């Protein structure tokens, strides 16, 4: 009887804490993912490397769900080419993106993320460089909770302040966008056409617009 009480107390404590951690009130505050004036919808044209599956981000599975890049040094990174469309679905720009798992991931504070570097090129206009941080904890949480049923039409605001408080945002550009600055935010949603991958919406806020 005593053992049963101790085990049930232990399990209850663990369960309650797990629920608390999954809905962590002190989790890193994300940046607003609302669609602004310069909002683009993107999907992946090409992808190589670790696809940052929730289980992979926690190191729970040997298989990262992506493709190997052939070296341990880049095992926690990926590269992709994105097509950006405007709100009417018209392709307007192409982008490359390089991402790597960030240092300092911490389940306790609900912050497990990736560093993301994006280069968008608008034909005949110019390009911008952006550096950002994505907190993937909401995706991990939903993946863990999916044992109770899949979450439909999930959309995640992932842009957040970096762990080391490094600068994020638009850091420069070319052509008509020379010297541009500003910020951006991003939301992700599972891409129905490419299982295991995400599509998204990126909203750019520049001082001139």
């Amino acid at each position, binding site marked *: *009887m005593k053992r049963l*009480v*101790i085990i049930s*107390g*232990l399990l209850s*404590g*663990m369960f*309650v*804490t*797990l629920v608390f*951690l999954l809905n962590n009130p002190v989790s890193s505050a994300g940046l607003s993912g609302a669609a602004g004036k310069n909002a683009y919808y993107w999907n992946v*044209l*090409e*992808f190589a490397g670790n696809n940052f599956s929730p289980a*992979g*981000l*926690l*190191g729970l599975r040997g298989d990262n769900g992506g493709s190997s*890049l*052939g070296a*341990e*040094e*880049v095992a*926690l990174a990926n*590269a992709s*080419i994105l097509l950006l469309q405007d709100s009417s679905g018209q*392709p*307007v*720009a*192409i982008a*490359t*993106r*390089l991402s*790597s*798992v*960030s*240092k*300092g*991931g*911490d*389940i*306790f504070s609900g912050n497990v993320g990736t560093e993301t*570097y994006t*280069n968008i*090129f608008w*034909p*005949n*206009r*110019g*390009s911008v*460089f952006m*550096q950002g941080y994505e907190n993937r904890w909401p995706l991990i949480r939903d993946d863990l909770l999916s044992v109770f049923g899949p979450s439909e039409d999930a959309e995640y605001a992932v842009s957040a302040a970096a762990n080391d408080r490094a600068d994020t945002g638009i*850091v*420069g*550009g*070319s*052509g*008509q*966008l*020379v010297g541009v600055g500003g910020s951006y935010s991003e939301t992700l949603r599972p891409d129905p056409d490419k299982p295991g991958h995400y599509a998204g919406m990126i909203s750019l806020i520049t001082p001139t617009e």
Partner: protein
Amino acid sequence: MDGLLRAGNSLLIRFFLASFAAGVLLTLLAARFYPVPEPEKVYSLASALANGGREEVYIIRLPDDRLGNPRAASTAPYPQQAFSATGTERVLAELFRVRNREGEIVGLASRMNGKAPDDLGMQEAVTDWMLLIPGRGALMMSRGTVEAGGEREFFVDRMGFSFANSGPIISGTGDFEGLSGFYQEETEIEKVDANGQAFGSVKLSTRMKSAAP
């Protein structure tokens, strides 16, 4: 008998509360010290420059290090109104693995090439590079209609690089944060096979120094 039962229940409640607290504590500790995977630190093979800066060289072997379509990388699907396979609207995007001077894979890179207007509205070729070294940081670099040291194009000192194939480092993070400098791209194509596959290498040299005066 009643008293004994009550004392027993009280003891069980205490056991439950103590083990509940232990469960909370254990889970919090596990969450705090859970080893979330992170990239290994890749050490730089930098050379010191006479002017106090440093040079790092990265190599891309073609076609081995090209990611994705090995022929011409990926462009937007055609035909689309916004893009064209040729002319000024053509934008080429490529992804690569990157090696250090010793040939070890240390990172990833992307290259974008297209046209953008200069000060006078003339379309000029622009080449953007991003270089990511997991565990160290990233570099964003560009040449064409970009600013170099506050002036467009005609920047005299490129830390020894040729004006023809070099451009400024736009931004850096991690180990590259707070550094300014230039990069140079040198492509050597040894042969192109019957399928149009290029064999050779791309050498990206970076020269950086502290941006602080």
